[in-house]
């Protein structure tokens, strides 16, 4: 059947490693990350760009991976939740703050929330309350734990100068 697309090879970088993704061109980046690279930290919530559970960084920009066809990931540098902790295994200050301040409950929204927070602090190391709320506004939490999530981000920001909680700001 001539109208059936062939799988394509999409060279890109995921969490610092060069990979070639093999998929139908309009496969969602979300599915390819999960099923081919087994990076299942990236979650699917709504599948329509409303909930932010599938947030990843693409070339430093926060995106909903459910809305990115894999063909558009060619040459991109992608960071998922698995690539947020430092190379030595130490958790990112945002992750540490989520642990310390109860920012995670059931956990489904957590990877997206953390990506959104890490991305916000990379762009703006000293966000005010309104900017934090805006930075997290694309991420829904069904456990209604928004205040603890918000407080976790505030704490991560406050501790970003501490030796043990240094922010990694590079994308």
């Amino acid at each position: 059947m001539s109208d059936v697309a062939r799988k394509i090879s999409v060279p890109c970088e995921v969490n610092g490693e060069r990979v070639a993704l093999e998929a139908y061109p309009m496969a969602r980046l979300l599915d390819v990350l999960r099923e081919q690279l087994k990076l299942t930290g990236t979650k699917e919530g709504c599948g329509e760009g409303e909930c932010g559970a599938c947030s990843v960084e693409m070339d430093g920009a926060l995106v909903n991976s459910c809305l990115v066809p894999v063909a558009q990931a060619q040459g991109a540098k992608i960071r998922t939740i698995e690539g947020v902790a430092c190379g030595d295994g130490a958790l990112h200050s945002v992750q540490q703050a989520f642990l310390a301040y109860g920012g995670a409950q059931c956990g489904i929204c957590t990877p997206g929330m953390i990506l959104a927070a890490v991305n916000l602090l990379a762009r703006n190391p000293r966000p005010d309350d309104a900017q934090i709320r805006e930075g997290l506004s694309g991420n829904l939490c069904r456990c209604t734990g928004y205040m603890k999530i918000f407080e976790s981000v505030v704490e991560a920001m406050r501790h970003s100068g501490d030796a043990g909680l240094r922010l990694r700001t590079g994308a």
Partner: protein
Amino acid sequence: MRAFLPGYHMETPRDLTETLDRIANEPGVWRPFAGGTDLMVLLEAGKLPHKKFLNIWNLRELRGIETSADHVTLGALTTYTQVRRHEILAREFPLLCRAAAETGSVATQNRGTLGGNIANASPAADSPPALLVYDAEIEIVSASGVRWIPYQQFHSGYKQMDLRPSELIRRIRLPRNNYPWKQYFRKVGTRRAQAISKVCFAAAARMDAGRMSDVRIVLGSVAPTVLRAVGVEGMLRGQKPEAAILKAAQDALANEIAPIDDIRSTSHYRRTVARNLLAEFIESLAG
């Protein structure tokens, strides 16, 4: 039901010339695909009828914001994030920046584009009301030429527009003459982020000796297309922003718009909100 993925094609042209040649040689077969914030939603829902797309996301010819003495010209692939971060836009075209800031959330703003917002032709789109207030013009290119048209003439009906299958929106141009108009923007939706508008209202007025010497009023989500309320504008021109004219203008506005009941709101609610937003705009001019 989810889409059958092998049925969907996406190819990436090298440059604008190749893109235009392909849509000229096979008209209607290949359609441009930009940031995907609308099309991917349809794909996942199994409701994307078209099957072949050209990935234009990386076309340099459709990117960048240029300023001259008379215009700010935005590439069609300018994202909402880029609109928000642009200093001249923030200073001289605040309605567009407000619209960008209230579209989706950070992730949507990083991928959604002005050209996509225009070509998707939703009457609930957030940037078109601001673009219409600013008398935007759009540049449409094809393999056989270039044309500029006033954006006001672009949308002719629900999801209908002056764009042939062989054409692509390349740039959007805003004349730099709106300063120091008084400007007003308000999007009414279910919540501040991520909502599709129930009513969107963008307006500007030039004040001379306490009177509105010129006024522009544009609404989204109240008609089959984003609507410039020319009747109300005519009624207000030359008047003082006072209660006396307001009631008549509100009645005229309620007649000029044609909102519907749908999943987001009701016709009645939209008419009421449109009247109230007009009042808020007029009151903002009195100060």
